[in-house]
């Protein structure tokens, strides 16, 4: 049941995107997200759409799998659209009682829907194609310069990778404890909100206990292997740019140029 959440998961397959250096993917995702907020007309999103869908095609991640992940944010999306649609002041198009839909409202709701959907699609595409370890490696390397101003980059990256590593473990543990309590007649699905919240106690307490136990074990295991932070630490798989990474950077540059020229075109038209 709980395993059906696909958002943020890694999807193991072999594509060019999977083999790219995580730094390229991180920068690419960042640029993509920025580009989403550049446009104020639907025309501008053509370039973005073409780019996003060709990347999805290249990634070899089944579209069905990606869509399944989107279900998790459907409510958030509906909320955003709802508020933008009804609460934006401007030229009234439709009015019924206190409901007041404006031209600006429709426009901004539409943009918000596109931006949010693309934002989630773009960033989940990064997690689909990059293992958590690669991701934190990439982040650590990208943030390395911050070390000079005393930001504990390695420690932050280590905390992130441990947190990411623990997500599937804790999900599995939740699943297991849930089943064990269901075998003892626990009911997580019926009843009012108060009863349901109360029924979570037999799940949450064992989960917390096991999370602390695991954290303790892990700290012990790391210390037993002489872990002492980032200074002078080497990597088994150091990140190194190869030809395809430079090619990917070129593609990104082309994308940025295309987006900026679209933006200028948009300005000139209207």
């Amino acid at each position, binding site marked *: 049941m709980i395993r059906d959440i696909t958002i943020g998961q890694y999807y193991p*397959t072999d594509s060019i995107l999977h083999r790219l250096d995580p730094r390229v993917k991180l920068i690419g995702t960042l640029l993509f997200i920025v580009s989403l907020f550049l446009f104020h007309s639907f025309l501008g999103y053509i370039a973005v759409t073409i780019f996003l869908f060709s990347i999805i095609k290249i990634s070899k991640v089944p579209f*069905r799998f990606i869509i399944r992940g989107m279900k998790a944010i459907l409510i958030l999306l509906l909320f955003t659209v709802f508020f933008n649609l009804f609460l934006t002041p401007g030229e009234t198009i439709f009015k019924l009682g206190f409901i007041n839909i404006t031209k600006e409202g429709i426009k901004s709701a539409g943009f918000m829907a596109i931006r949010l959907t693309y934002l989630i699609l773009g960033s989940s595409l990064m997690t689909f194609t990059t293992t958590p370890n690669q991701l934190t490696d990439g982040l650590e390397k990208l943030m390395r310069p911050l070390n000079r101003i005393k930001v504990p980059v390695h420690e932050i990256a280590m905390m992130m990778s441990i947190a990411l590593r623990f997500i599937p473990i804790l999900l599995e543990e939740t699943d297991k404890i849930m089943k*064990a*309590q*269901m*075998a003892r*007649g*626990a*009911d997580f699905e019926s009843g009012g909100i108060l009863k349901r919240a109360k029924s979570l106690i037999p799940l949450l307490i064992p989960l917390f206990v096991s999370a602390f136990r695991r954290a303790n074990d892990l700290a012990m295991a790391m210390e037993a292997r002489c872990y002492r932070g980032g200074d002078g630490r080497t990597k088994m798989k150091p990140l190194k740019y190869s030809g395809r990474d430079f090619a990917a950077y070129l593609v990104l540059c082309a994308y940025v140029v295309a987006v900026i020229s679209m933006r200028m075109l948009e300005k000139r038209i209207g």
Partner: protein
Amino acid sequence: MQIVFDHINYIYSSGTAYERHALKDINFSIQKGEFIGLIGHTGSGKSTLVQHMNGLVKATSGHIYFNGEDIYDSRYKLHDLRSKVGLVFQYPEHQLFETTVFNDVIFGPKNLGIDKLGAELRAYEALKKVGIGDDLLDASPFELSGGQKRRVAIAGVLAMKPEVLILDEPTAGLDPRGRDDILDQIKSLHEESGITIILVTHSMEDIANYADRLFVMNHGELIMNQSTKKVFARYKELEEMDLAAPQVTYVMNALKENGFQVPTDVTTVTEAKDEILKLFHR
């Protein structure tokens, strides 16, 4: 027939990269009062199989009948099934959550809708059966030793008075004393109240001592379904599945090869002792 599995298939995360055919066309039936052993190497589908028995996992295809009723029928109440088929998970002590041992064991019967007094009585009986003394009733379950915790967790399932008790590796990670205690308590439970027991384990010695019939799983398939002796007589096949026969079976086979006239279908140390003594008294 108490439990019948009819062409059960189970596929994990179907339609994704993690798709796995965990159970392949499983068929068997279990009579009331049997003591079944379930063996198979790690990942062979044992745990998935037992989770089907109380409806925690729903099969992708096939039917399961409990006391003649189809548990996948829309009118069938799975909640009732779970009170009749008690399942003790691997490392059951990880599910303890209450402030005291006694309160934790009451959780099961209380969920069945039994009144307070009745639930307390059941909890007390169950704790007695697993050998937890009165002095521990008000202790926090988190203060107990590993073996004690496990017995409390087993009591939590026993207090629901199931007709079938399934134990998924109840002795994993326990010392020899704790292991024997738990297995002996399960055995006396089986003999006294006549409930059906299904024991999942990695220890061939344990299973030879207690089970009448064995199920052998391999890669999601039920390979063998025979009496304990017959299964261990096929120890060469078991070895191909990364399993083995009990040590004494090998001893008896070696004796036979070296010219001693002993039977080779011996699976327990006591039996082996009797047979060897018989040889010398002849």
